[in-house]
């Protein structure tokens, strides 16, 4: 096991609510690390609607998902949060009073006094194609992510999709696979034009195949695919023999490991009390879209409010002997020092 990373607070989820929590915690001298499964910061704002407008952030008549993320990052900069992206928190274990050991899929371990679950609609995970029986092949010969390229050396690889992930992995795996086929439903791609051009060049050189169609069925044994049955757009059917299939159909939100942390849930949401947004486990808080309480609204502004109240209670766990005095950022020199403006 790797050396644990020690922190005051571990925030699970770098969506808008996780980000603003860094600010409220920072004002009260608590340091935070954030873990997010996405490869970028901003949660739904970054993944689902970076260019769409938001009109109901108090005091900001108009901002895009991307704009809000950037502004929040600027706002929390003085507090130097550490981000761990492309990693998923899998387990939380109580090891003290309160002290938690939190582990991630990539093998990172944190020791933290407080956990803030800001997991939104759950973790973004790859969409699984509704091909009958696909489950039996998953993680054996059907993969939704590439963790080790070497795994595909000398294999006949079938990549399915037309977005950036499909194209990037086509380019990366072409020299490693013994044979690579890219399967997509149409001639056009939503991926970066540069990647598309590079892919087309490989096709022209005869290094890879590009085929039009959609997978309807898999054949194989004991989790090992032998071939994919593919339907062309004119409904004719043919086979592609392959050892591994990588379908890339974007992401979907799934509750994921949140369900296994021993927190009281209601309709797949974490129940909290509304004085501090603490969960059924003292020291673990839940803010933003992931929590539920009477009157809850899934709005960013509500998540911001929840973060502010959470920080007050979190302070008691991190600094049990210190008393909090209420201060304004406008007039408190001590707060302004923390913000680097005094």
């Amino acid at each position: 096991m790797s050396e644990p990373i020690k922190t005051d607070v571990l925030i699970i989820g770098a969506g808008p609510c996780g980000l603003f929590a860094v600010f409220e915690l920072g004002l009260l001298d608590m340091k935070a690390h954030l873990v997010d499964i996405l490869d970028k910061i901003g949660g739904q704002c970054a993944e689902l609607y970076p260019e769409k407008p938001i009109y109901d952030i108090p005091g900001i008549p108009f901002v895009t998902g991307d704009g809000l993320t950037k502004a929040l990052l600027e706002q929390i900069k003085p507090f130097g949060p550490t981000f761990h992206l492309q990693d998923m928190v899998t387990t939380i274990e109580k090891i003290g009073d309160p002290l938690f050991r939190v582990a991630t899929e990539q093998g990172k371990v944190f020791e933290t006094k407080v956990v803030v679950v800001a997991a939104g609609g759950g973790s973004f995970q790859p969409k699984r194609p509704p091909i009958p029986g696909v489950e039996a092949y998953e993680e054996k010969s059907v993969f939704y992510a590439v963790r080790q390229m070497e795994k595909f050396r000398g294999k006949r690889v079938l990549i399915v999709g037309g977005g950036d992930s499909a194209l990037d992995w086509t380019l990366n795996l072409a020299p490693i696979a013994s044979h690579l086929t890219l399967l997509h439903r149409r001639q056009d791609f939503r991926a970066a034009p540069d990647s598309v051009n590079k892919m087309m060049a490989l096709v022209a050189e005869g290094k890879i195949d590009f085929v039009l169609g959609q997978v309807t069925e898999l054949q194989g044994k004991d989790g090992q695919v032998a071939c994919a049955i593919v339907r062309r757009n004119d409904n004719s059917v043919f086979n592609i023999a392959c050892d591994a299939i990588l379908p890339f159909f974007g992401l979907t939100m799934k509750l994921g490991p949140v369900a296994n942390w021993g927190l009281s849930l209601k309709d797949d949401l974490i129940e909290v009390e509304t004085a501090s947004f603490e969960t059924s486990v003292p020291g673990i808080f839940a803010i933003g879209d992931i929590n539920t309480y009477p009157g809850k609204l899934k709005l960013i502004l509500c998540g911001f409010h929840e973060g502010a109240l959470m920080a007050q209670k979190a302070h008691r766990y991190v600094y049990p002997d210190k008393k909090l005095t209420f201060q304004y950022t406008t007039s408190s020199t001590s707060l302004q020092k923390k913000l680097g403006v005094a």
Partner: protein
Amino acid sequence: MPKIIFIDSGNTSRTVDAEVGSTVMENAIRNSIPGIEAECGGACACATCHVYVDEAWLEKTGGPSPMEEDMLDFGFDVRPNSRLSCQIKVTEELDGLVVRTPERQA
């Protein structure tokens, strides 16, 4: 008010009243139509509101916009009559529209 008829993968049909100007997806969600998830709330960013427009209605609904066509790449079993239901606006002309929902979106 225009009516929309949703037929699910098991061939059960459900008819709902739809306000002019709303989207087909919004009516599906409001009426808890199975097979429509609409995770992104209509932002044309998730493709979990994928439907098949009945052939007889294709001319009236028209085809997908380029942005929608791009997003359909993230849908499964996409066919020539595939649309994202959040991108179909209800009009008086669409009274009686028939759309089929897939077995599962993701």
